[in-house]
């Protein structure tokens, strides 16, 4: 990590806008600092924390929450929320199992099918929010319940095992680099995060995501088809949910219909810890990734240190408070 340095001269001659970008960059680096502090702390107190194996573990355990958080970042920036991502993920995992194991479709088609099914769930959310005008909280709460039930119905309340398709499991725990023992899941998360970043920062979709969250009415008055974009954004979040379903079932070697509840809260927490505002208009992919990492570093570190389990949540809560407070205080200080 090399922090950008500027000579005093440059700073004085640089136009305001350039200076601003610079400051933004430094600030994101500072947001990173919370994470680094926590990381450093655990490295010091526990000999088993900072080594290749455990850092890989941390990254690996970030994958599912990370994917869900990435998708929901878009929704939250529009000022919405998506509670259906947890159980929706379980349903997509089951669909993947049905397609690949029960139906015997080829792996790539099954995976694509599951992801697209996630998109379908998102589409329904989007229609409910944008066309029927339901509050996102209600629309996605209902979808959360429906997906939970359907996952059980479709799977007949039994896990679906992928033992016969080892390639599927390799999607998660396999390693592209032979011998490196670096799970593919982490690579996938990285690639998807970059894609999400590009989508949010460099495309029209991203621009309208911020615009809608910033002022939905004004966006509509500027001639933008807000409905259509909102539907698209929820659908996009659904695709991430679908991918998360694939990745969790690949990790577990099975589609578990009863999991998923509670993941939505963790993913939303990651997004908010990462500085995205629940009232919309503000947020970043980098922030979300940092937020997700903060949560998994904390979980991992506390477990590695063998802190009594009842205390782990207490500490987790306090550290989250501190991290967010520090981030805010810094922003305010500028």
């Amino acid at each position, binding site marked *: 990590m090399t922090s950008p340095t500027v000579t005093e001269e440059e700073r004085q001659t640089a136009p305001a806008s350039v200076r601003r970008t610079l400051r933004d960059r430094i600030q994101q680096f500072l947001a990173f600092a919370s994470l680094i502090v926590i990381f450093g702390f655990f490295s010091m*107190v*526990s*000999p*088993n924390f900072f080594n290749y*194996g*455990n850092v890989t*573990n941390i990254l*690996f*355990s970030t994958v*599912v929450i990370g994917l869900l958080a990435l998708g929901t970042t878009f929704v939250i920036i529009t000022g919405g929320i998506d509670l259906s991502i947890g159980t929706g993920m379980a349903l997509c995992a089951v669909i993947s199992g049905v397609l690949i194991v029960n139906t015997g479709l080829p792996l790539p088609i099954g995976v694509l099918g599951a992801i697209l099914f996630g998109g379908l769930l998102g589409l329904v959310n989007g229609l409910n929010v944008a066309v029927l005008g339901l509050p996102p909280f209600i629309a996605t709460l209902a979808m959360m319940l429906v997906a939970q039930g359907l996952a*059980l119905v479709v799977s007949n*309340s*039994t*896990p679906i*095992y992928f*033992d016969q398709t080892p390639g599927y*499991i390799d999607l998660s*725990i396999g390693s592209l680099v032979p011998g490196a023992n670096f799970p593919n899941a982490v690579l996938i998360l990285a690639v998807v995060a970059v894609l999400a970043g590009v989508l949010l920062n460099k495309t029209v979709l991203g621009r309208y995501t911020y615009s809608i969250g910033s002022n939905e009415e004004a966006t509509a008055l500027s001639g933008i088809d807000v409905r259509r974009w909102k539907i698209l954004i929820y659908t996009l979040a659904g695709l991430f949910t679908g991918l998360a379903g694939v990745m*969790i079932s690949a*990790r*577990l*070697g*099975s589609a*578990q*219909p*009863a*999991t*998923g*509840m*509670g993941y939505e809260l963790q993913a939303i927490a990651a997004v908010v810890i990462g500085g995205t505002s629940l009232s919309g208009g503000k947020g970043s992919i980098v922030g979300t990734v940092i937020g997700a990492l903060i949560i998994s570093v904390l*979980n*991992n570190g506390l*477990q*590695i*240190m*063998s*802190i*009594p*389990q009842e*205390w782990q949540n*207490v*500490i987790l809560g*306090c*550290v989250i408070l*501190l991290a967010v407070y520090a981030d805010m205080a810094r922003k305010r200080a500028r």
Partner: protein
Amino acid sequence: GGSSGGAGAQGGGAGAQPYIAIVSKGFQHQFWQAVKQGAEQEAAKQNVRITFEGPATEADIEGQVTMLTNALARQPNVLGFAALDSRAAAPLLQQAKSRNIPVVAFDSGVDSGIPVTTAATDNKAAAAEAAKHMAEALGGTGKVALVVHDQTSRSGIDRRDGFVEWMKANAPGIELLPPQYGGGDQAKSADITKSILAANPDVKGIYGSNEGSAIGVVRGVQESGRSGLTVIGFDSGQAQIDAIRGGTMLGAITQNPVGMGQQLVDASVKAMHGESLPKVIDTGFFWYDKSNIDSPEIKAVLYQ
């Protein structure tokens, strides 16, 4: 934030004291606390260090897998493991094996040859025992309802299926209602029980498949003001013991959680020393009711 006081003793796997990492199916519930207690007792006796952890709910399979990963990162001498879904953990168990960390399974079996032994209860047989007592108490006829804690976890499925299969095979006069699932939450299970009673005034018996479900059933029956029902539960805990003494509950099946914890640690120590172990250590289950609840052998396996 002066709450990190519990962070004291831990020192990786390098210490002189052997270290056994135990990952269970749960942590907060009484049953698991009793297992933990047994394990701690035995650990003190054998002079080994243990850690005991488990996910918040039995649906959190990924959480358990992550705990297992982290437990392995702590370089234990032996790994104790109660699998929520044994196949999900297969790669990690493989990793343990390749690092020469013996695995001792407990509570329910692991579908693989890796564990050196399994200290477990046969949940299906235990549920069948419950069914037998239910059928006897009802004289072989009547409607029976099931309030089960979970529809996807191993223990939930076994305790449901063991009960249902025994009834189908041995008590044709008993009519079983479709099982309802309360997640082991007492209040929710009580509400479910009351709905069942409202919908089926002629229900004669109700079976609750774990502590939370069983206590919920008892509460539900009490709250609806019904009497003359035959209630059979599972596990122990003070509320259930009181219900049996008071007559609201006929009896219950208990496993031996404290014993399970002890056996687990004992077997782990043996595995560490390379001693040979039986493939299965049956930790057993017991039927208890008013008549034997105060007997020493039952008292020993109940937790309050």
